[in-house]
């Protein structure tokens, strides 16, 4: 399994936190606030993730999909987008969602089993998490297509996992993007497992990135635990898309530290040794923090302050989500159609009568 994934692709920050020569070049032009923002987002997202797992254990939210380990891939990619750009995530992109402007409360509501949690604030072009695998990939191609036809500069991004690359929708989406030269980015977080099934069971190719060639779009493999490399590669893909050079398939090689969801036990199918290596030696946060500290951009005190600040924000969101008024049963009918057909009006009435009779 490890064999297939030995080469993580473009890497700018090494696991010990030092920059490669190409990394030096990429690092220099980045403004100081953005350098710090990378870290702040990664830390906040991880804290949110850890809190969510506990909330699930306490029965306060439902089954939850953790993302720990994939923060750099999400932060690096999303920070290179604009507000005008469209995002089509899967169920594991809470980090992406937060950066795009989804309030924490909404994300929590979603995992509390409330459909209101799918709805972003006005102006945030973030789709609800795609639960069926790979189905959001053609949507991103379509949104990009519309931008192109309307002559707008916005791009669209689909986020998905390595398992998704086996579905027909992946191939169809990429093919459209190639044929119509669409401003779309296909961002695969190759965390090496689709629940229990290893990457080697999804494809006989060595990489996901190489599949781009079959659709005549650009393919890049990048170290998904290296926020600088991901940011740089994504920035380039966005630029190409905006300037009419077409689509890119980005494969960010990463690893989910924990289980697939809180209903899963990764110990059944992953070697402890392998997981430990990724968690301890290749963690995206540790690596980046070392670099920031070495550059004098971050300190222990700042870490403490930021953690406290995030934790407070998260607790407030938990409070808000938990105190949100429970939806009435009639909410089932709230948005099924723009205008409710008579038969559904009758069904709603019968439900209300039943509720009264109980």
């Amino acid at each position, binding site marked *: 399994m490890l064999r297939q994934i030995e080469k993580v692709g473009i890497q700018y920050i090494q696991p010990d936190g030092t920059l490669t020569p190409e990394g030096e070049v990429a690092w220099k032009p980045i403004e100081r606030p953005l350098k710090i923002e990378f870290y702040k987002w990664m830390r906040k997202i991880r804290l949110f993730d850890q809190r969510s797992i506990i909330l699930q254990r306490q029965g306060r939210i*439902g089954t939850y999909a953790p993302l720990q380990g994939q923060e750099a891939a999400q932060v690096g990619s999303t920070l290179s987008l604009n507000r005008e750009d469209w995002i089509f995530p899967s169920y594991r992109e809470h980090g992406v969602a937060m950066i795009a402007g989804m309030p924490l409360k909404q994300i929590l509501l979603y995992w509390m089993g409330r459909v209101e949690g799918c709805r972003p604030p006005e102006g945030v072009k973030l789709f609800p998490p795609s639960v069926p695998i790979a189905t959001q990939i053609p949507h991103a191609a379509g949104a990009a297509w519309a931008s192109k036809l309307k002559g707008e500069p916005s791009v669209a991004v689909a986020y998905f996992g390595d398992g998704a690359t086996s579905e*027909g*929708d992946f191939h169809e989406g990429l093919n459209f993007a190639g044929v119509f030269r669409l401003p779309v980015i296909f961002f695969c977080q190759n965390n090496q497992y689709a*629940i229990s099934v290893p990457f080697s069971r999804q494809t006989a190719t060595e990489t996901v990135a190489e599949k781009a060639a079959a659709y005549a779009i650009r393919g890049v493999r990048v170290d998904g635990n290296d926020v600088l490399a991901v940011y740089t590669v994504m920035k380039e893909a966005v630029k190409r898309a905006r300037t009419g050079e077409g689509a890119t398939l980005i494969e960010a090689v990463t690893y989910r530290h924990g289980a697939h969801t809180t209903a899963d036990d990764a110990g059944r199918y992953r070697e402890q040794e392998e997981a430990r290596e990724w968690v301890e030696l290749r963690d995206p946060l540790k690596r980046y923090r070392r670099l920031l500290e070495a550059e004098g951009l971050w300190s222990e005190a700042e870490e403490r302050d930021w953690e406290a600040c995030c934790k407070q924000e998260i607790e407030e969101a938990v409070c808000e989500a938990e105190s949100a008024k429970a939806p009435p049963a009639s909410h089932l009918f709230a948005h099924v159609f723009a205008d409710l057909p008579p038969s559904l009006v009758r069904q709603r009435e019968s439900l209300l009568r039943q509720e009264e009779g109980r």
Partner: protein
Amino acid sequence: MAQFTLIQAINDAMRLALERDPGVVILGEDVGKNGGVFRATEGLWERFGDDRVIDTPLAEAGIVGTAIGMAVNGLRPIVEIQFLGFAYPGFEQIVSHAARLRTRTQGMFPAAMVIRAPYGGGIRAPELHSDSTEALFVHTPGLKVVVPSTPYDAKGLLLAAISDPDPVLFLEPMKLYRAVREEVPEEAYEVPIGQARVVREGEDVTLLAWGAMVPVAIAAAEEWTQKGVSCEVIDVRSLYPLDEETLVASVKKTGRAVIVHEAPRTAGVGAELAALLQEQAFLWLEAPIARVTGYDVPVPMFALEDAFRPDAYRVSEAVRQVIAF
């Protein structure tokens, strides 16, 4: 005899099938090393190896499509679709091919295979995991559709499905996976496809249900029995083909019927049952047939799941309605 839960009974049926017939293979997502996300295939990969219990790429059309090819070339594939809601990417293969190969090849290459899928609500699963779209498949000519509601039936029906010469969709009510244990014979046995099960006999009203709605119907029946109304409960069990005889005979006896399913109402299987009873037992009916169903709305996320799924209260109210008519 062993005490099995419904999911253990399913596991046991597959173990027996793999043992008895070297042509039987299981394919699906996470069915191997992980033993299935619900543990339906637990222990089978260890025992029968990677060529018999196969973790496939994440591709339902690919899984169903290759299983069809395997079936026509002499194997007996059992496909696991992780949740019924994820059968849709494979729908094309099920509907356009598995179901009509026998017809299209005039009997030359029938696709004898089983497609297993957990389905239905009640376990607070994430979005889109709780669909009950059995009607889509019942409406597909050439496909058989069965739903066990007890461990005994689960084992016997699955073995019957595996030996059936036609494609069978085997739906597994997730809510009942671990709800009860029951004595299940160790040896292989079959519960014939096409037969309903009379769960309890009664004189005044017939309750028709399947899957996770069977215990709900039983609860409502018990309530009314205590009030002196005797309810017959029938587990329809085989949605296609239907056991017309048993259903019609029961309604002729009681004169009243309440049909319960958790799928949306419009064009659900309940509508077909109501039409059937109307055609064959019209003169015996004392009241219009009542349906207790999910609403015609997307199956909600779990915060509203209880409002969507029929419960004993709603079934009781329908019983009241057909009695009072």
